[in-house]
């Protein structure tokens, strides 16, 4: 899924689950997780030039602090 620069402040890409536009108010980092506002899917940023996302891995038993 390709991201796009709609203007200098907001970047978007397409949700891999529902194809809705997912907006980023600031430059994301690879590995950041965002939630699709439309379908609620957790998406992980897999690349930033352009922004691509994939469904984020599910929580594992050894995750946490």
């Amino acid at each position, binding site marked *: 899924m390709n991201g796009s620069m709609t203007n200098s402040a907001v970047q978007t890409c397409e949700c891999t689950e529902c194809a809705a536009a997912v907006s980023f108010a600031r430059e994301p*980092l*690879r*590995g*950041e*997780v965002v939630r699709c506002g439309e379908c609620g899917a957790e998406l*992980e*940023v897999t690349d930033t030039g352009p922004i691509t996302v994939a469904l*984020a*891995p599910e929580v*594992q*038993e*050894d*995750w*946490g*602090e």
Partner: protein
Amino acid sequence: MIALLHSRIRVEERLLAEELAKRNIPHELLDVRELVFDLSDPAPWLKYTAVFERCISQTQAVAAVRCFEAFGVPCVNPSGVIDLCGDKLATTAALARAGVPQPRTRIALDEGSALRAVEENGYPAVLKPAVGSWGRLLARVNDRDAAEAIIEHKGTLGGVQHSVFYVQEYVDKPQRDLRVFMVGLEPICGIVRDSEHWITNTARGGKASKLEVTPEIGAMCRDAAAAATECVGGGGAVLAIDLLEDPERGYLVSEINHTMEFRNSIAPTGVDIPARMVEWVVAKASRAGQRAEKVLGTTR
């Protein structure tokens, strides 16, 4: 150069990366999921003066840190500390050795003896997985029927790690617990987590407010941090220590977290937690560099 070792980038990792950048500290974000370590070839890793471990997976964290340590790269936190704090049995044993007050805990390794442990404890009892975080898979067991069911489910459905039955007394605390953030042996700040549910993790909806870290609380947390880092020569680490308040015994250490989350704690405490953490990592890198210079008789 400092390596910020990560998997998922949470708000915390973002804040830490921004802090490193703000201080103009050379650093690199390393995604642990992309790394391959050749344990006979340390060369690619020696450019790092320290590794700041911030992986969301404890398994990945320990494995990667062990590799870096094999190459002589200092890590925050060291693998021994991650191992100990990430395993409630190991934590409880270390705290018991050090005489740090904590809830009474029994360990059993079989379903039959687990039931006996719960019965010896009395009801309610709390069953926890030895490895786990965010308040996951905690069970308050109110009677024998529930105990039998939960123990059977853990034995049948759980993996090998659920074969260690961690049985703890239920502490009749006020509807809150306390968290103290440690850098080294210094408590830098603390929060109170209020929740109507007996599980008070903010991940489960607990609300944070500022805690005044009293001398009593500070001393207990210093003792806990010292106990948790004895395996690596002491000196404390970057830890979050959770405390319960028992109506009769006072403060009890509930658990120690090795890759602490702090996003909801900066505002209520007014303490720049990421800044303090980065300062610790930088100091660790600097000390390691000085030691290397002494050994090699060189300057970097």
